[in-house]
């Protein structure tokens, strides 16, 4: 018998909802038949905690006296975008101080960038703001230097245009030199491999056709409450899938938003990727309402059934071809050793499975205690029938 989100919420309010994590549901479904499990379980919680480059914060610092219409701005020396109204600022996770040596001293360390400022801001530390402007009759001030603190800001909103990618590539290096990539340091001649997904706990892998997740879905975000606000950039439902519907390559993505003031530095971490850049590691957990048997069947997916493509990051990825060398399951990846072209290759994660598990548990507790109600999405994320085609850039030379 099908359930509605309103019915599930009634149970949550009464403290009677049955909530389990995406890991726990696997064993429950093995013990009971799917039909019975679908009747009994109301919500399955998911989690993921990994570096997510397309992240940032939108802040409004309040007006100074006299007023300033900020043109250029730095937060702890990291440049942010002020190309909005007078005192609205967007700081991206990968921004770097102008004087960071980048990869001039190879490989660069990227010790402090946008992601680190976000972690400091959410931790309640004072942030040094330096701004300049050209001055107008209504906004005469040309220079502003001040400490700011999250508690004094009008708004501090985490707004991440692309997070929680559904499945991801496994990076290896076929060349004879060490390479430094956003997927970590890769040793030559298939010396090691990195993967970046929580697999069976990952939000979108538990709802592969986005039958419950959409605009307005309330989620765990950075330790606080956030919302899915749109599909993420590069959202690409039309990829090869397994019989069960699990994408075999990176596919769906989420754009998410939430009040940074409620969040915690434990779940928003400044990240330094040697040779690549600065980043923000984001914790996300999405609740999946078990509306019917079909939805439950998707959440039962396990690491053995989720396959990731292995891609060479020395030539194939940089050139844009992303040719797949082979496929490996997350169950294999989590053993710490995979086989590529007949060679044993040590594999490690960039996304933390332990933290993903913790997020799914926290979200489960929130729901069980009636603290967190589910929302009805305004509309669902575009799925395989939405006619989306993923486009590479078509360059048109400028004469």
């Amino acid at each position, binding site marked *: 018998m099908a359930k509605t989100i309103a019915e599930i919420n009634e149970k949550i309010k009464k403290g009677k909802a049955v909530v389990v994590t995406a890991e726990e549901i696997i064993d429950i479904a093995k013990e009971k038949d799917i039909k019975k499990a679908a009747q009994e379980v109301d919500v399955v919680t998911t989690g993921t*905690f990994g570096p997510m480059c397309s992240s940032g914060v939108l802040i409004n610092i309040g007006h100074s006296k006299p007023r300033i219409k900020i043109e250029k701005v730095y937060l702890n020396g990291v440049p942010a975008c002020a190309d909005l109204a007078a005192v609205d600022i967007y700081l991206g996770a990968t921004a770097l101080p102008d004087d960071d040596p980048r990869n001039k001293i190879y490989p660069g*360390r990227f010790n402090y960038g946008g992601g680190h400022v976000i972690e400091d801001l959410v931790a309640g530390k004072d942030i040094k703001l330096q701004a300049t402007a050209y001055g107008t009759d209504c906004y005469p001030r040309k220079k502003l230097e001040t400490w700011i603190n999250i508690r004094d800001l009008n708004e501090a909103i985490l707004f991440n245009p692309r997070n929680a990618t559904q499945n991801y590539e496994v990076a290896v290096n076929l060349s004879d030199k060490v390479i430094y990539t956003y997927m*970590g*340091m890769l040793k030559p001649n298939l010396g090691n491999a990195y993967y970046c997904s929580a697999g069976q706990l990952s939000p979108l892998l538990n709802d592969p056709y986005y039958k419950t997740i959409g605009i307005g879905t309330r989620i765990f975000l950075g330790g606080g409450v956030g919302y899915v606000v749109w599909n993420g950039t590069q959202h690409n439902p039309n990829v090869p899938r397994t019989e069960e519907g699990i994408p075999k390559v990176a596919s769906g993505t989420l754009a998410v938003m939430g009040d940074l003031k409620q969040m915690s530095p434990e779940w928003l971490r400044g990240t330094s990727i040697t040779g690549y850049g600065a*980043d923000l590691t984001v914790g996300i957990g999405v609740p999946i309402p078990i509306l019917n048997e079909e939805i439950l069947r998707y959440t039962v997916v396990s690491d053995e059934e989720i396959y990731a493509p292995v891609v060479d990051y020395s030539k194939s990825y940089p050139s844009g071809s992303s040719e797949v060398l082979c496929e490996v399951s997350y169950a294999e990846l989590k053993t710490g050793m995979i086989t590529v072209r007949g060679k044993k290759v040590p*594999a*490690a*994660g960039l996304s*933390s499975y332990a*933290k993903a598990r913790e997020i799914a548990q926290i979200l489960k507790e929130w729901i069980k205690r009636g603290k967190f109600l589910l929302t009805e999405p305004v509309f669902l994320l575009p799925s395989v029938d939405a006619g989306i085609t993923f486009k590479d850039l078509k360059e048109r030379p400028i004469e």
Partner: protein
Amino acid sequence: MQKRKVVLTFPPSLIDQPVTYHLIRDYDLVVNILKAKISPKEEGRLMIEISGKRESLQRGMNYLQELGVEVQPLAQDIIWLEERCTHCTACASICPTKAIAVDRKEMKISFDKEKCIACELCVSVCPYKAIEILF
């Protein structure tokens, strides 16, 4: 046989002395040099794994101390900041001595300082600066 990993700090007056040679020849010790450097202040630092009979090892240590070489366990120079660690496991696959290991059930990292040779590969790989090597 006993084995220890230590960091030796030499004052400027000793940096041109063949101390390692004496440890090997006079005290019958096996010395494996892991790292060595001389700082701008002309202080010498030598990270070694040293093994031999218990008694020889003790005599060797006494010799170093009498010379004015400061000896401290390597473990003191290696810090795993557990609260910064996210247990992503990125460091585990590149650790050459398996000092960093993953509990596959919990998917959590453990760090055995005794096995660490302070190669610092993990330091550049850790995105969260959860490992500090002070050498």
